[in-house]
């Protein structure tokens, strides 16, 4: 879902960048206040894991592919502010080194995948826990929804840049409803593994 250069107009690029900067400043502040420094290596390897997993496009129907975003996984495991920072790190590397996501669209890509996806996923996860869903179910729905939220945001940005909203929104939603199932399966599988190990190390994580 990485938007390349050329898809968005200047006001949309600047507007989304402004929103992202405000959200990320808050993430820096929250993580700075609460995160245990000893947890930084864990952040590092989870970031590397999500980067690698994002490279693995899986084919879906109709000659299209999808890949993990990982924002909901990080939000559930490490907390939404930390997830926001890790996603920012990944998106910066992808944009600057691998030309995955345009430099001019970086603000929009950050907004979709480093702000909306982790927070949307986290909110859905918390909601499902509150209505007493098993955490596996909560994680599946949350990660599926996180992809959908990011896709809707992406469609809005394309529409603000002059593309027809009534066409782009349903098309983006259609494909990402399907891609989101892959996100849900991978996220749930990783979390099941993490939650079911004997060491219970995930319970020790300070979630920020």
């Amino acid at each position: 879902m990485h938007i390349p250069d050329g898809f968005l107009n200047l006001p949309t690029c600047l507007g989304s960048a402004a929103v992202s900067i405000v959200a990320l400043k808050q993430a820096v502040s929250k993580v700075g206040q609460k995160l245990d420094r000893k947890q930084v290596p864990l952040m590092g390897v989870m970031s590397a894991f999500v980067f690698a997993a994002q490279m693995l496009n899986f084919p879906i129907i109709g000659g299209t592919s999808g890949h993990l975003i990982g924002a909901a996984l990080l939000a559930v495991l490490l907390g939404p502010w930390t997830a926001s920072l890790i996603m920012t790190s990944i998106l910066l590397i992808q944009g600057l080194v691998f030309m995955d996501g345009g430099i001019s669209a970086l603000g929009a890509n950050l907004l979709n995948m480093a702000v909306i996806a982790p927070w949307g996923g986290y909110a859905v996860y918390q909601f499902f826990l509150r209505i007493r869903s098993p955490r596996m179910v909560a994680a599946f729905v949350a990660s599926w929804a996180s992809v959908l939220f990011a896709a809707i945001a992406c469609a809005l940005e394309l529409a603000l840049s002059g593309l027809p909203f009534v066409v782009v929104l349903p098309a983006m939603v259609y494909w990402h409803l399907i891609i989101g199932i892959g996100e849900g399966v991978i996220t749930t599988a990783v979390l099941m593994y993490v939650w079911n190990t004997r060491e219970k190390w995930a319970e020790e994580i300070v979630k920020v």
Partner: protein
Amino acid sequence: MSTIGNRKIIGWLVLALILGILVSPWASSNPDGLERVAEDQAFIDRAENLFAGLIPDYLMPGIENEAVATALAGGIGVLITLGFTILIGNLVSRKTIG
């Protein structure tokens, strides 16, 4: 924090390297969701590159074998991401709790 030991950390890193190096050459090259919409709605041609990345499209420049070029890009990407996130984490988390 004591239970998140070095073995766990190294385990995740090894997994990331396996995915980035050994599995990435098998990734689907079909268009992703956004690219598919851009193709169907005929705005894919608007895509351009304002900036030349060092390793464009996850292919190590100068390597003819595509699987090897992808594996190298994946391995390098995993290590850069690891280093960059640890740098950010250290800059941001000034406080040590516990």
